[in-house]
């Protein structure tokens, strides 16, 4: 049995963590009163935030698993303040993690664009890597593009810093790409969180499960170490009539992925986990489909989890060599940074000259 640590940082990370805990109880609003969490492994979850209200909002994560870093109500998307705040509270955070015992793998979930999560996560991962041996993966949610220049610039720096932190891989989710998950912002968040949570739980099962065709943490590490260290997760569910082939394809299509990517073009390594009743899991079909994928990208690990009577579900973890979408994002980010800089300079200049006020220099009011 694996020992798994999941940290949710910032509001976005907290919420996704809460969704994971909710699903581990079996889902549903009151499941925590009558159900036990069904993690396949020993899972410790820790929510970290500077905003106590965000922590209080959580419902399925035990209070003892919520770590408040006292800093008023968030860091207001300011990563400079956020980073300083992490440094100030690093010992508390690391001590809290240490108390939870030894781990085989850790996941840090955060948004890339906020203040707290995006600024805590890179140094936290760095700290974990320095302290422990186990692999640490980032699960990073990208912002809606229209959310503004600060969020874009934060994303750009966050991803870069995280990449340089020694992380063993970054799994991307994209609000922009997944916004169809809800009709309004709140339901979209809930839908996206639920999707991410479902995939992570599936992944945990794949890492720590009696599988017919084994994949394990080692395989996952190998997959994640491929490519540019950027990965995403796909998921698809059969309806009992569609073929396993089409389900696999679906999991790799934009419908199944968390981040916009042409897997066959951009993919580097993949891990496909199939779960369901044996009757749906035709080995030949699976093999042919996996072969097709591997012929395009490279190595593909596959695992099969037999669940009697269950319709087939498929999880695909794919690392990307290149990503057009991320390039586009960075292009936007650069524009955003320049815009911010220009705005900053202009404001500085206006501050210096006094702009409007300078127009009445030397004039006296006349009555």
């Amino acid at each position, binding site marked *: 049995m694996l020992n798994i640590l999941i940290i949710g940082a910032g509001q976005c990370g907290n919420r996704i963590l809460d969704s994971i805990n909710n699903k581990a109880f079996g889902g549903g609003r009151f499941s*925590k*009163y009558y159900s036990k969490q069904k993690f396949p492994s020993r899972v410790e979850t820790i929510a970290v935030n500077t905003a*106590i209200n965000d*922590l*209080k909002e*959580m*419902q*399925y*994560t*035990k*209070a*003892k698993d*919520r770590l*408040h870093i006292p800093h008023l109500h968030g860091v207001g998307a300011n990563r400079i303040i956020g980073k300083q705040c992490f440094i100030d509270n690093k010992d508390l955070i690391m001590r809290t993690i240490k108390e939870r015992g030894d781990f085989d793998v850790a996941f840090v979930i955060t948004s890339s664009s906020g203040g707290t999560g995006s600024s805590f996560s890179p140094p936290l991962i760095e700290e974990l890597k320095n302290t422990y041996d186990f692999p640490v993966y980032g699960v990073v949610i990208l912002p809606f593009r229209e959310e503004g220049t600060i969020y874009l610039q934060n994303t750009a720096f966050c991803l870069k810093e995280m990449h340089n932190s020694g992380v063993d891989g970054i799994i991307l989710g994209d609000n922009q790409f997944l916004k169809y998950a809800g009709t309004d912002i709140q339901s979209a968040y809930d839908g996206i969180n639920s999707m991410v949570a479902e995939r992570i739980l599936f992944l945990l099962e794949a890492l720590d499960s009696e599988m017919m065709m084994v994949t394990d943490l080692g395989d996952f590490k190998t997959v994640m170490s491929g490519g540019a260290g950027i990965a995403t997760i796909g998921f698809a569910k059969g309806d009992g009539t569609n073929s396993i082939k089409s389900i696999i394809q679906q999991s790799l299509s934009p419908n199944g992925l968390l981040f916009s990517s042409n897997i066959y073009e951009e993919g580097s390594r993949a891990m496909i986990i199939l779960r369901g009743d044996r009757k749906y899991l035709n080995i030949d079909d699976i093999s042919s489909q996996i072969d097709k994928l591997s012929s395009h990208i490279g190595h593909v690990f596959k695992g099969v989890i037999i669940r009697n009577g269950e319709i087939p579900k498929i999880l695909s973890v794919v690392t990307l060599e290149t990503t057009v979408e991320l390039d586009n994002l960075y292009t936007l980010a650069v524009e955003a940074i320049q815009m911010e800089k220009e705005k900053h300079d202009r404001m500085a200049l206006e501050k210096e000259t006094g702009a409007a006020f300078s127009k009445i220099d030397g004039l006296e009011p006349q009555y």
Partner: protein
Amino acid sequence: MKTYHIVKCGLILIFILILSTGTASAFNIYDEEIYKGDGYQINNYFIEVFNIISHEDSRLLTINMYQLKSDGTYEELDVKRETNVNNKLTKHKYQSDIVEIIVMEKNCTSTYATVDITTSGIKVVYNQPVKGGLSSAKFIGEPSLLLTKEVDKTNVEIGDTIRVTIKAKNVGSGPAKGITIDHGITPGFTFKSAIYTTYPEELAAGNPDYTQMYIYEMEAAQSGTVTLTPAIATYYCSTYDSEYSSNSNSPVVTVAQEAVETSVLELTVTPHKTELQRGNKVTFTVSLRNIKDIPATTVRLDMIYPYNLTYESGCEDIKIIDNKPVIQKSIYEARYEDEYDYTFLANEVGIYNITAKVSYNDGANNIINETTSDMIYVTEGKYDFLKEYPLYVYIIPIIIIAAIAGWIFWRRNQFKM
């Protein structure tokens, strides 16, 4: 005692003899007018004016005398007649060895004679002029007294007084004369007083009723079954110069040993209410009274009650012995009275009573006295239907609900910041 009795009887006899001899020599009748054909009877001697024969100025009187017999016949007696030549009056005389009857003519008309009758040797018990002569004379027979002795009670204790009544009835054919009653002294009884002594000396034959003769009271002095000494009536009849006596019956009286004075404890038990609901309490008051002048000892008061009642509490005299309320007192003073409260819990629906039982020594014996209260009616309580089910039926759901509530509360706190 017996000798004394005989002597006494003898003395009475002698006295009666003296009395009768005196009377026998002195019976005379003077100037008795007897019509022709009529007569005069003295005891069973009958003197008849048989005939008066008139001749010019002179009259010749003939008087006959008869001895009447018990069988209704008679015997004509040999009468000697002597007529005085001077006055022409006739003397009639009957003479036997003992008896002498002289009828002296004093005057005579054509229809009646006036005579003097003198007798000797007769103890006269009956003398009467008789209309119609010999054919109307009646034999005067022997008296026979039936004597009864009655007592007013036959079961007494020593020291008790009994009243004895002696009655007599003459069932003979002749009058009983000179009756004396000896009431009969009974050993074991002490004569106290004579209540009635004025009995008649004479009882005529033929009266169907008893005549009260003697009433007296005596006190029982000895225990045992005593047969009273019969009363004796002594009497005589002049016709036959003999003594008679009759004995009464002998009532039997049982005399018990005089009772020792003892104490008596009286007991009542009263419920304060007779209707109540199950689960409620009811108090019983036991009142215990010594109604005698002697204290009772080793008094113990127990309550006998059904298992559906549970003793709850009571007055301070009560001690719990073997799970039961008991009051014990070494002495319960004479005329002492007290009340004791017992409170019971009614466990079951039903009709019950309780019994108070007092045991004590009354000075002579160990006595047990019990009394039972009125019925009390225990009905279903308001929430009694709840008791129909065993406790766990209520407890278990409550425990479960409490556990669930506790769990939810605890769980909620686990997830609350």
